């Protein structure tokens, strides 16, 4: 910039052009909005595909806004069939199809002259010929371009004939291409999907040592394949459906036809088919839409990223729901103890599995109740703890200026803050932030006399135990409920804790998951208290869960190890 320009700018400032944007409200321009609506309504009224290719092309151009929508390709060409030429076009979304597949196996056979499409077939038109009284009667096969394209010109394994635009648009949006031919009031829906996918990788949140190391990905077809590969049985049914009036998200309902209860399958279908929303992005969203009691925060649907876990549940007689775009499968129905089970339980010996399960139950209790009990004991029931420990607590709190309730809530909130921040920061810094939060801030808070060291231990134990709960939602529920227990413990000591526990119990007994009571199978009346909670040895897992009411009650024979007892 010249010096004179700078001087000019200083002494003769000109107003810089600025950009202003105000969001127009729906009332600003009533006329224009009405006219647009009318136009859209007219477009939406069209359902059937027109026989004229020009009308179809125009309609699609308007519908897809082809002038501004650059990834939608409408490729017009001349189709050769039996030495005749037809106008045609191919419609697809750039990036969602396999270009080689379209070029080599769709456009090439249709456009280039070859033996298939240049063969006029006149000699084959006569099906039969009969001569009576010197009159020859010939039965002639009428040439059908639709059949000819379908049977002779397109070497594709998955082609469907569609007569409505909405079906064609749904296919195009999911990565297929559509072939429109002049004079035909149908279109060919050709499966040429070829978009980029994340490869099948290791599970990140359900890690096991002895089990398979595969996890679901975002593509529903890959996920169904992963399940089918494990189950390997023709009775596995995978029903496709779409949810969301705008997103048309593909979902799959999977069940074992010869095992799953028919009423359960019907109920799952009913719920999935009666979800009236604009869009569905994830399985977490679907979970909230299909659960029985949405006002309670206890999880009622199992979410797993492991195909082996999903397959196990399917073989047990449950239903698995997959959502396109989500690497988690939903499993219904679920009972409380399902959320404390790890996929590892089936891979290790039952003694280890049960020990781990007891540890997880203890972890659940600790994460839920420990801070509340600490508050209750220090506020009301000091005599419960050994005198030496009581002195230690009193001494450690001597310099703390806050009340116990304030101190513990501040610490719990800080812990949640560190946890949340650890999730948001980039991966390499995440663990560092946790260590800084836990060690440095904790130590500094103790040194500064803001909190007592014993409280740091309580919060740390609570935090660690919350990670021992296998299900993310259940751990979340405990983290939230913990605050209620802290307040109840402060208000009425152990009586307050008892009040909280009882309300928790009442809610848990009320909850149902697809008609199955949350705690039913573990109530002593059913005689299933031990088999329901603990994992039986592999050779003893003879029956499927009662509450599933499956078509096949038995999983294996009474003697599964025939090699050991050949005569029984």
């Amino acid at each position, binding site marked *: 910039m010249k010096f004179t320009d700078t001087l000019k700018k200083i002494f003769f400032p000109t107003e810089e052009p600025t950009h202003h944007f105000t969001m127009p409200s729906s009332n600003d321009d009533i006329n224009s909005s009405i006219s647009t609506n009318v136009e859209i309504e007219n477009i939406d009224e069209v359902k059937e595909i027109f026989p004229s290719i020009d009308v179809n092309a125009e309609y699609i151009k308007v519908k897809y806004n082809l002038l501004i929508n650059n990834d939608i390709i409408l490729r017009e060409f001349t189709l050769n069939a039996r030495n005749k030429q037809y106008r045609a076009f191919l419609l697809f979304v750039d990036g969602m199809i396999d270009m080689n597949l379209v070029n080599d196996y769709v456009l090439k056979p249709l456009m280039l002259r070859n033996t298939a499409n240049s063969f006029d077939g006149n000699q084959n038109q006569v099906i039969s010929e009969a001569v009576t009284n010197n009159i020859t009667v010939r039965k002639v096969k009428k040439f059908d371009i639709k059949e000819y394209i379908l049977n002779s010109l397109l070497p594709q394994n998955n082609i469907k004939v569609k007569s409505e635009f909405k079906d064609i648009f749904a296919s195009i949006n999911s990565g297929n291409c559509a072939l429109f031919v002049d004079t035909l009031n149908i279109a060919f829906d050709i499966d040429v999907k070829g978009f980029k996918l994340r490869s099948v990788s290791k599970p990140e949140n359900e890690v096991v040592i002895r089990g398979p190391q595969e996890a679901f990905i975002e593509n529903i077809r890959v996920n169904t394949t992963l399940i089918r590969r494990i189950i390997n049985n023709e009775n596995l049914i995978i029903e496709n459906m779409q949810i969301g009036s705008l997103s048309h998200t593909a979902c799959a309902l999977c069940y074992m036809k010869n095992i799953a209860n028919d009423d359960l399958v019907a109920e799952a279908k009913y719920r999935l088919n009666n979800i009236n929303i604009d869009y569905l992005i994830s399985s977490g969203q679907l979970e909230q839409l299909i659960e029985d009691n949405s006002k309670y925060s206890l999880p009622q649907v199992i979410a797993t990223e492991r195909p082996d876990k999903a397959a196990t549940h399917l073989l047990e007689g449950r239903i698995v729901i997959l959502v396109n775009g989500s690497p988690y499968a939903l499993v219904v129905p679920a009972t409380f103890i399902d959320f404390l089970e790890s996929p590892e339980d089936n891979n290790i010996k039952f003694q280890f599995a049960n020990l781990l399960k007891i540890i997880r139950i203890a972890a659940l209790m600790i994460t839920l109740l420990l801070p509340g009990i600490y508050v209750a004991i220090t506020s009301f029931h000091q005599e419960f703890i050994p005198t030496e420990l009581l002195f230690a607590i009193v001494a450690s709190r001597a310099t703390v200026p806050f009340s116990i309730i304030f101190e513990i809530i501040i610490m719990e909130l800080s812990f949640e803050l560190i946890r949340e921040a650890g999730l948001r920061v980039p991966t390499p810094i995440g663990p560092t932030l946790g260590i800084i939060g836990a060690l440095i801030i904790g130590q500094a808070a103790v040194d500064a006399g803001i909190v007592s060291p014993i409280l740091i231990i309580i919060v740390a134990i609570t935090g660690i135990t919350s990670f021992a709960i296998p299900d993310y939602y259940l751990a979340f529920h405990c983290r939230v409920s913990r605050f209620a227990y802290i307040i109840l413990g402060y208000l009425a000591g*152990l009586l307050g804790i*008892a009040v909280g526990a*009882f309300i928790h119990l009442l809610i848990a007994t009320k909850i149902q998951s697809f008609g199955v009571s949350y705690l039913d199978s573990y109530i002593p009346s059913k005689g299933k208290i031990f088999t329901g909670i603990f994992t039986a040895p592999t050779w003893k897992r003879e029956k499927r869960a009662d509450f599933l009411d499956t078509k096949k009650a038995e999983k294996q024979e009474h003697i599964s190890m025939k090699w050991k007892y050949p005569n029984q």
Partner: protein
Amino acid sequence: MNYTKLGNFEAICLIVVLFINHIVLNLPQMILNSSGSASTINAIYILILVLLFTILILKLLKNFIGLDIIDISEYLGGKPLKIIIGILSIFYLIFETVFLLRMFSKNLLLVYFQNYPVSFIMFLFLFIGVVSNIIGKKSIIKSNTIIVPIALFSILFTFIFVADLLKIERSMPIFYNGASQIFLSGASNIFAFNGLFFLFFISPLLNKKEDTSKVAFWSVLICGIFLILSITTLVFAFSDIYTVSRLSPMYFIIINSRLSAFLERPEVIFIFIWTLALMSFINIAVMFVLNIFKKLTNIKEAKHLAVTVCTIIFVIAMLLNHIFAFETIANYFYKYGTLILVFGIFTLLLISANIKKKFFNRRSP
């Protein structure tokens, strides 16, 4: 009462929960006061009596399968009798709850909450009563089915830990103040089985109505065994127990048990469990009060009246400030209220209804 049907185990728990609360509070003490060192013999004796009574009741109920005492009273005396029996039953349940609640709260107050008003403790119990009835009957029944076995195990556990203190000599004199006191006036101790009150209401609730007898016998047996165990433990383990403790005898057993060697204050776990058991009983009592009221008035939904019922219980429980007077009234009500209503009026009503049925059957062609 057309609500959730009960399985046999659930029904047994429903009957037993009232007994558990009494055994935790004052039942063994009351029997010990009247029968002294012969309390074990008395307990066995009343168990036999109650078993015989149960057989009689079941025989009388056989003609009224699927009906509760309210329906039977309507059959016998029409609407007026139905209303009288319904009101009596509601009164019994409300007062039973009032006395249990107040006495348990008093014990809690003495042990842990010296600086708190008793109203606050009672409020928490009744708050659960309201919440549970709003959440639903199914939850009340199922939560009770979980809590009752835990409470029974906790009681059993306490007996195990005082087993080494048991001495046979403490049962002397075997007949205490004489056999007549054990077998004649001691027969009135059958009030201990006041859980049988629910037996008169349970028949229409059962999944399998023909299982009423199973439910009745099992619940009486469970109550009987635990009664004998608790009394035997107290008599055989502690000399002069019947003059010493003003607090709950079960509490007395725990604080003197070997458990203290392992845990600093083991009673806290037990009190926690028994607190849950009392909460469960209050839920059930309020649920039955509402259902009887619903039956009497034909209202569509009664669950929101839980607030009213709990407020009434709270107000009555707060009426008497003098705790010893309260205890005396409670003990009288527990003993004579049960004897008059459960073993008296209900039984007479059943007998009369059976006679009427027999008479009608003979008259009708």
